[in-house]
């Protein structure tokens, strides 16, 4: 009965301020969920709750039927808009770090054969994001787009069950951004990722995601703006033109994932 990731009646409150209220969500494995909404509508709060950085003040979050701890762990990878990579490590060291943490609890460094294996794995990952030849650079020597590629490689090398993206392309030039869109779509297909992406860019939300959530306040009290929190006001499943119309009604017609994925078009926007 439970889906891959489910949020049941989740509230996020900071003191008197109610940020999110009554958020109920079921997210399927392999979905690419874009979250949009006006500033202050709790997009990032929702992401932080799923990430485990913040605990919901009420409600339950379950991953595969198991309650999620309100603490960051390697189930959930993340790429932030900035500061996602470690400035004191080279590209290769940044990518290795996750592998080293898992295998060397005390030193967090690998040696010999274990290191060679980890380096090979990290290099594969760097090739996948297009940084294959940049292993020895430091983040400060790279452009913003390359740093975000690195942040992706760093997260994906851990094979997270969910990849959370917090406006990952917000600080990039338009040209670089479309390159990154292609990259994330390819990675989503290649690694069968489940992605939740917060973005300001509505075009990006619709072109990348196969489900778009809009957060906003359902009620508003002008005398007490913090009295009511935001919740999901639109939940739009997107499908390609090809499948029959009925498929659009299903929250996520994920069987189409195996097909050609270059163009996702909005078949129908229905406010449910």
């Amino acid at each position, binding site marked *: 009965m439970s889906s891959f990731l489910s949020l049941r009646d989740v509230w996020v409150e900071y003191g008197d301020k109610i940020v999110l209220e009554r958020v109920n969500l079921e997210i399927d494995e392999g979905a690419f969920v874009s979250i949009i909404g006006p500033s202050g509508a709790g997009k990032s709060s929702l992401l932080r709750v799923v*990430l485990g*950085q913040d605990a919901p003040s009420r409600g339950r979050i379950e991953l595969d039927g198991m309650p999620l701890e309100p*603490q*960051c*762990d*390697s189930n*959930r*990878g*993340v790429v*932030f808009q*900035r*500061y*996602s*990579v*470690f*400035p*004191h*490590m080279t590209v290769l060291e940044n990518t290795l*770090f*996750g592998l*080293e*943490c*898992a295998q060397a*609890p*005390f*030193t*967090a*460094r690998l040696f010999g054969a274990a290191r060679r294996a980890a380096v090979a794995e990290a290099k594969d990952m760097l090739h996948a994001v297009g940084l294959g030849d940049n292993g020895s650079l*430091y983040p*400060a*020597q790279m452009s913003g787009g390359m740093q975000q590629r690195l*942040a992706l490689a*760093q*997260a994906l090398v*851990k094979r*997270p069950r969910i990849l959370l993206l917090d406006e990952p392309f917000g600080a990039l030039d338009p040209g670089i951004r479309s390159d990154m869109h292609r990259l994330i779509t390819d990675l989503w297909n290649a690694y069968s990722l489940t992605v939740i992406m917060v973005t300001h860019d509505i075009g990006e939300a619709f072109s990348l995601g196969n489900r778009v959530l809009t957060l906003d306040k359902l009620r508003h009290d002008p005398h007490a703006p913090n009295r009511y929190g935001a919740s999901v006001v639109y939940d739009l499943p997107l499908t390609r033109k090809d499948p029959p119309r009925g498929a659009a009604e299903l929250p996520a017609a994920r069987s189409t994932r195996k097909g050609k994925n270059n163009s996702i078009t909005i078949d129908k926007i229905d406010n449910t």
Partner: protein
Amino acid sequence: MQDRGRSVVRWVDRRIGRTNGLLMGAVPILLLVLLYLFFAAERHAINPADKILPLPGAMVDAMRALVLERDPLSGRYLFWADTLASLQRLGLGLAISTASALLVGLVLGLLPPVRATFGMLVTGIAVIPPIALLPILFIAFGLGETAKVALIVIGIAPFMIRDIAAHTAELPREQIVKAQTLGASTWQLMLRVVLPQAMPRLFQAVRLALGPAWVFLISAEAIAADIGLGYRIFLVRRYLAMDVILPYVAWIAILAALTDILLAWSSRRLFGWAHRSAA
């Protein structure tokens, strides 16, 4: 008109090359030396036995005895023995302060429970004037080396700790979260993410602490010591021996400047990633 407009470069935009920088830096120092010589010569013209502003020749004579000749009483080359004793105290004080700044500062900056428990204590200690504690140190540790090193440590460690703690606390939250999503434990986070990023700041903190460290060293030596640069200066003061005091002060300045240059250079060599954006 246009020509002149182009040739006037604003001062904020002027670039100074390496050679020019050295030359320009030498000018005020040379001027000060000339100024001193002028006044010294003037005083000696009136009173050839003047001790307040000794001429270079007198300084060389006075220092020759300390640098090149054994002291008949102790059998030591006093200048070198003073230097060695002072540098030992300073080095030990700096080493202990640096180590504690790193250990305490990191933990204080990264772990909120530790900060809540000890943050106020460290701040409290940092605002006590260390010289006010000197009598306590002499009473507790006697007049030996321990009290002098302890004064240096008490004088500089608290603000170094606070500096490292503040720097650690300013690390972007995203980095800490990211490391945790990569599976890092608190220990791994400390070892691989926080510690390496605190190192350039630590070097910076040591450089800034050098000045106060010398102040506390000289103070401690002035009050109770039988050897050391500060001890010598305060000893010969009784005989108005400016011909010894001035070279000693210059020597301290050279030692401090060399340490500073060495630290800056090693920080650039060791932590290139932290200095690259400036280049």
